[in-house]
């Protein structure tokens, strides 16, 4: 059995009804316990941020991240080991959204 570690997973999402259960469902399906969960406005207008604390294996975390990003309304997802600073990606996401939106025009 692969070694379990503490992880913090963050996801930046559109503000859609029902997304909380979509995100939670990805964990449930892989029988991963959520140790703590916080959802709040990210600081980027219209974009919400999920922070999930969990204890699991690296393989499962990787699967969670890829499947989070596969959801239509999820913009980006990131993973940190235990006590890393999980706010540093805010600017990256903001830049990424600007890049994506430039493609639309």
């Amino acid at each position, binding site marked *: 059995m692969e070694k379990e570690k503490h992880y913090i997973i963050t996801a930046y*999402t*559109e503000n*859609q*009804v*029902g997304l909380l*259960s*979509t995100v939670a*469902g990805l964990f449930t*399906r892989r029988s991963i316990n959520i140790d703590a969960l916080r959802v709040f406005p990210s600081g980027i207008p219209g974009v919400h941020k999920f922070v999930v604390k969990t204890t699991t294996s690296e393989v499962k975390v*990787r*699967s969670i991240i*890829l*499947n989070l*990003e*596969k959801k*239509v*309304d*999820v*913009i980006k997802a990131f993973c940190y080991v235990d006590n890393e600073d999980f706010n540093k990606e805010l600017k990256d996401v903001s830049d990424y*959204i600007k890049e*994506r*939106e430039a*493609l*639309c025009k």
Partner: protein
Amino acid sequence: MKQEQMTGSQILLETLMAEGVDTIFGYPGGSIMPVYDKLYDYKDKLRHILVRHEQGAIHAAQGYARTKGFPGTVIVTSGPGATNVLTGVADAMVDSTPVVVIAGQVSSTLLGTDAFQETDLIGMTNPITKWSYQIRKTEDIAWAVSRAYFIASTGRPGPVVLDFTKDAQVGKAEFKYEKCNFIRSYISKPVVDESKIDEAVKMLDASVRPFVVYGQGILQSGAEKELAALLEKGDIPAGSTLLGLSALASDNPHFKGMLGMHGSIASNVMSQQADLILAVGMRFDDRVTGKLDTYCKDAKVIHIDIDPSELGKNVPVDLGIVADAKDALSRIVAKMARKDRKAWLNSDKHCNEVELQKVIIPETKGTADTINPGEVVATVAEVCGQDAIILTDVGQNQMLGARYSRFKRSRSFISSGGLGTMGFGIPATIGAKVAAPDRKVCLFVGDGGFQMTIQELGTIMQEQLGVKLVLLNNNWLGNVRQWQELFFKERYSATRMINPDFEKIAQAYGIERVLVEKREDLRPAVERMFADDKPFILDVHITEANMVFPMVPPGKPVSDIMLNAKEWYK
């Protein structure tokens, strides 16, 4: 000047037409009645196929989508109407089939009150849809519907469910339609990393024994020509997943057959001998890989898929490329070296000879008193000139239909792969015939699956669809029976079927049915079946205890192949 106000129902139908929809598979009911009322005014523009059960609607939409490469459309009511489509939605999710389901819902003011025929459809469909959305406002309809078709049909295709409240259907708003072709949080077509293409070309050129494994991604991206060109340029053999069948013509010299549990010996053995596996538009299902930690141990693996979450999911990859298959393959073909690998390409002679003598001839050239199902499939392939769209249900009929059908044209094989949904066959055949009225459309189905969606014979009757239903009838749930014989000490628990008189059933629906019990009657009956474009049931009484081989038993490496109940491939 202020634009004319429309009801939500009319906005829905106008948006469907703007998206290019011409056919709806559906079933009315209380919470969707305003839409059906408006449909009365659109009956010359939108064809509505009334099914007999909502499961029939979703499978028909899947058959339509897989034939046409355009999303199938389903309209049903709330509650049981919506829950009845769930099996097909899950099937479409795992088989990446583009379908859009529009389900009625109680008025938004009643949500959460256990109102009559209210269910939490969004909650139920969350894990089995690419996107699901509840339309509560008339103003949102055009936006949500256009977005639904964009999401269903692009990227890795999949099902979308729209839960459409009754007040949004009857409310009024201006019709403001704008075709959706961009969503900032969703990448519909990945940009290919050219350096990874270069790396793939380098690995391919250095390989002595490369083997290509491909899946439905080839059909969905329209990469059939690019795939054939790659195989030709590099003298590379290839094996197909179940859903990838018909992407290469059956007589293509590079095509080594289907992969996996009931695949060809050559494709399984060669994938184990290869020094490089190039996987394109497929997901290494356990039915393809066999025991995972023994699969392609000596090979480097390049995996090309449009879905990043598939890369490395089951099989560790040396190089993963997130790309549309056509895009990636055309770049690789342009850069790769032309190589002579004839010796490797044709190294499967022993495999093929063993399979021919031990499996194919006994199955398709039967000499016993009863007819083998493989004889029926092979006869259909001969008579229809390899030009029909072949569908299967699930089980032995499916594996034999896949093994012995022959294809010249792409998008000619439709089956429920990942979910393995018995009862898929009859309604999916309806959808395929609606999508391709000029083609021959033929289903192989067992007596079990036939009775799971037997009610759709009513739809065939009402629409007078020229579908050809070949009932491989052995009065058993054959595939489970086979496993019971091989792996459960011949304890035949709940697999024996006492069947109805299918002649009377066919008569009741006004469908011609011919019974075949003797070998000499088979070919004339198949010729009779394809002589016109009318509904037809060919009821063939087949060998009861017939088993599908070759077989890689579950949990074994794909090179451990049973030729029959006693012999193994050496």
